[in-house]
């Protein structure tokens, strides 16, 4: 089994694992992380990435069952990063980033954009439910 799909550049897996742990509301086991990432990664690949992140101090772990469960570290660091984040987000406020230093992922929407996007998501969700369970659709 390939360690990572050819499309994933270096460092992308660590990024995705971190994002996955940040999105979860509780500590995750390596198996859960692997299931969440969902692109046929080898268990050892996920395990290695988690250990590497833990060694860097980017994530914390606690014993769970026979192995460990991983989560983003909590505590004074988190509070400080919240303050810093607030300051950075102020950079984003209308009129503050006049120089255009930040590249935002989301853009301002017009009513017609909103309609387009809602339709896009609706059709995507319809396809997803049809793909999973044709009886329920």
């Amino acid at each position, binding site marked *: 089994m390939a360690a990572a799909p050819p499309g994933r550049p270096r460092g992308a897996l660590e990024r995705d694992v971190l994002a996955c742990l940040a999105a979860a509301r509780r500590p995750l086991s390596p198996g859960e992380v692997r299931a969440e990432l969902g692109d046929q990664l080898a268990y050892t690949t996920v395990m290695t990435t988690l250990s590497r992140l833990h060694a860097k101090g980017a994530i914390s772990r606690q014993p769970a069952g026979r192995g460990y469960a991983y989560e983003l570290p909590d505590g004074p660091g988190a509070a400080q990063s919240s303050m810093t*984040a607030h300051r950075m987000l102020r*950079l984003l406020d209308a009129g503050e980033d006049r120089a255009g230093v930040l590249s935002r992922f989301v853009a301002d929407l017009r009513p017609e954009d909103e309609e387009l996007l809602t339709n896009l998501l609706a059709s995507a969700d319809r396809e997803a439910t049809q793909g999973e369970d044709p009886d329920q659709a």
Partner: protein
Amino acid sequence: MIALGLVPFACSLLLALTATPLSRRLSPPVAAPLLTLTALATSLATGLVLSLAGFMVLARLPLVAALGGWPDDRLRAWTQLPAAVGVAAAGLAAVLLASALVYLARVGWDLTRAHRACRQLPRASDQLMITPEEHPTAFTLPVPLRGGAIVVSTGMLRLLPADERRALLAHESAHLRRYHTGYVLLASLAAAANPLLRPAARQVRLAVELWADQLAAREVGDGLVVARALARASLAASRPSQPGGFRLAVAESDVSARVHALTTLPPRFRPWAAASALGLAVASSAIAITLTFAVHSRIEFAQLVSARTVAARQHSASPERSVVRVAAHHHSTPLRDHFSLR
């Protein structure tokens, strides 16, 4: 010569009119650098031409002429540029230069703030910073000396399913890997120094978004996943800013263009579109350079003539005078060409 000086302005106007159709016909990795280059070249050219026009009028002032060592009456005879036009050009050049400097200062200030903010932020991984905010936000910012940072809020990460989360992160990291902010900032600088280039700068901004979307689609293997991530994130992010159904009209929106690009085939490479953008850049730079040399040689010739007059008046040694005469003769040949340009 006055007609030649108008060429860079015509190029800026043409670029303003054609920026949108041009970028639509070029693939984003071509459009972003090409439009940035064209905007920069055109902006430099217009700035240079305005300064030259101002200089040619200012050089006629007796005080300036005395300082520079050229006879003002001769320059006056050579330039047909009306004094009012020259003064207006000089004023405009000063205003535009100031605008560009203000823009640069603003960029410097923002980058410094970004750097300071990032220094205090614990780093989750090499580039990713996760903030505990509930509001869905995600952005990339260049951080001097540290490459850059992707800042994503927990709210945004919880909003998206795993594959769309991956698409979002791939999009943001593409911005950093390909130095997208560099193109945006250079094009905006060009637009600050020449407001006619604003449409081009806007197209550069859109092109880097399309470019990052394209790379993200390649990484996750499906453009539709990127489009869904964009849709979900944009809808969620715009919701709280809607008091009672009223929304400020957004004049320009990239979302439709991005979704369209993600769900259709990329444009084929159109050599003529690339060539015409490049042509505008070359034409305006060539004219600006020609005019600079023309003005330079006129001033130099005027200086030589005045030196020769002084030398003749003082009855100085003959070898020195002959050197001056040879030099003056050498310069007079290209000058005759410049006169015919008027």
